[in-house]
């Protein structure tokens, strides 16, 4: 009912604006149009859930007459595949690891950060993540950890290493994320390989390791709800997980902990890019600037339990569960975190093929 009401209101506003602009005789250059009267439309290729107005509330409030359409991508690979195939979305939302190809294949436009009013609130370490070949192609937006999530009642001794995901002790109760590059990453942490320079021999060893792991693994999870359900029911004792699942289970009173493996946690950052050749570049910049806004950021933190790139948002967190989820009170956690490096096209092909072979193995 609420949204219906809102769209009705929007319709009235639109008519008022149209009448007003007709009276003024038009001809005013776009730059002079007050935000409330700006019209147009944008298409955003985003992940399911992020299309909810909560996650672009600042833009909606500032530019109520701009229509925002969403297309949904199921994974980084899906979003890249769509953009590569000529999807006409103005804005898209990839994650670290999957950024380089957009630049290599000429699919992304450089960001004019001078037009972003919220850009100063983004720490430099985050800005750097959106830079490729020295240019700011992406703006960082959401971030979080990957680590091992485990049931403290089933594993009272705790988990202190990524190797637990491959430990026969937990046979039948492990759930790995269904993702080849993530499996390679875990193995490089365990063995101390250089993640950016995995050799063919190392990749072969990694493949064998995960083929052996398959007999211990209950199922590979593809979506967070599937994992949360498995952990809640007690079938899964430990899993590769993002902290969203951790916060969700904590909130439901399930006895879980989020490990600090001795090899360090993994961290990922979600970024937004603007499609090269879009006719809505200026509007897209306005959208991304509003994406960095505080109300939007607070919603990311409070509704999805992920971090936001606006430091003011993160400094404002007081909720204990959230503080625990982000390990905000642990000063060492970020220093020992491994940020996901960008894959090359060769690594993408080799690592995903490795994973397919793990699944197909006898």
């Amino acid at each position: 009912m609420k949204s219906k009401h809102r769209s009705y209101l929007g319709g009235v506003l639109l008519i008022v604006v149209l009448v007003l602009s007709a009276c003024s005789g038009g001809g005013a250059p776009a730059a002079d149009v007050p935000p409330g009267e700006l019209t147009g439309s944008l298409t955003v290729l985003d992940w399911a859930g992020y299309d909810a107005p909560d996650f672009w509330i600042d833009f909606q409030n500032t530019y109520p007459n701009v229509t925002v359409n969403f297309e949904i991508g199921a994974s980084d690979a899906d979003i890249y595949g769509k953009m590569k195939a000529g999807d006409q979305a103005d804005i898209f939302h990839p994650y670290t690891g999957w950024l380089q190809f957009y630049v290599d294949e000429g699919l992304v436009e450089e960001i004019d950060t001078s037009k972003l009013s919220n850009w100063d609130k983004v720490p430099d370490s985050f800005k750097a993540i959106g830079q490729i070949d020295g240019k700011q192609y992406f703006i960082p937006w959401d971030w979080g950890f990957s680590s091992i999530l485990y049931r403290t009642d089933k594993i009272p001794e705790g988990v202190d290493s990524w190797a637990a995901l491959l430990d026969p002790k937990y046979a039948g109760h492990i759930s790995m994320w269904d993702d080849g590059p993530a499996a390679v990453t875990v193995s490089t942490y365990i063995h101390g390989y250089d993640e950016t320079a995995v050799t063919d021999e190392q990749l072969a060893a990694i493949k064998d390791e995960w083929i052996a792991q398959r007999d211990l693994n209950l199922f590979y999870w593809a979506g967070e709800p599937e994992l949360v359900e498995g952990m809640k029911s007690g079938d899964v004792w430990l899993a590769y997980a993002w902290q969203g699942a951790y916060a969700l289970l904590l909130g439901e009173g399930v006895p879980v902990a989020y490990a600090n493996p001795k090899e360090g946690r993994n961290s990922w950052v979600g970024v937004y890019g603007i499609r090269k050749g879009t006719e809505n570049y200026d509007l897209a910049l306005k959208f991304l600037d509003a994406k960095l806004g505080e109300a939007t950021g607070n919603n990311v933190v409070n509704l999805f339990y992920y971090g936001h790139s606006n430091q003011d948002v993160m400094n404002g967190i007081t909720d204990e569960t959230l503080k625990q989820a982000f390990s905000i009170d642990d000063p060492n956690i970020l220093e020992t975190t491994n940020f996901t490096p960008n894959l090359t096209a060769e690594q993408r092909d080799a690592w995903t093929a490795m994973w397919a072979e793990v699944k197909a193995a006898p």
Partner: protein
Amino acid sequence: MSSVESSSPKSTGFGGGAPKGRRGLGGLDRPATFWFIYLPPLLWLGAFFVLPVLLMAAFSFRPDMRGDLFQPWIPTLDQYASVADTTSYLRLLGISALTALGIALAAVILAYPLAYFLALRAGPRAGFYLILLLVPFWTSFLLRVMAWKIMLGSDGVVNSFLIYIGLIEEPLTALIYNRTAVVLTLIYVWIPFAALPILAALQRIDNSLFEAAADLGARPYHQFMRIALPLSLPGVVASFFMVFIPTIGEYATPLLVGGSRGFLYGNIIQDVFTKAVNWPLGSALSMIMLAATLILVALAVRLVDLRRLFE
């Protein structure tokens, strides 16, 4: 498949089989009418089936995903070579074909009595029972597979019941997340589908054949073996292929109930397309599956001799 599809009654056929003249659907032989009726489906299939398959065939000879997708490329057999190098893919294709064979046989055998009952025994209530049979179609395929997760899960119906009656203390974990669960689920999913072609075949049998057989002293068993079964074989074959062919490429069910060890060849294709964004390799894997399916169907046609069946 075309030979299977021609199992539909001949009366609607066009050209060759139909008697000369301008009978049937008010003059189907007139070109204008012909195009009016057949052009839309032909265009549809051409645009959304033939063209994509051709595109996929072309993509399977692409070296990689780099550059503009619709710029011409120099054809290469790299993708096929890489599949040939990966024996586990071909082995999984074999397993998937065998699994599909088992599922199709089981589904047809279980569907036959259903169809037989509906066609020859249910009497005036057949329509009602048919609707009951079709009730599962009212919900989505995925929902029905999810229901099996609820049935077989460790806190699911089966385990809860067994624990309740005291037969087991700990939930059985072997019920779900393996290939057996995939097979069980798919057989269940396919039974109503498999029953329909058999039902259609049984309904076409002239009732007087049974009466004549009974008059001549044939007992029900012989009536079934000499009349119902042979005359319904085209339906049985159609329903077998209707289950077998889509099951070879099935990927959704293994994802939901197959766990780490229940994957089928379709999962590899899906992964290569959607997780690896490697369309050339995915296309090669798909073309190999298409070829394997066609060969298997051709072999089966040889064995069963469909033409005699449909005469």
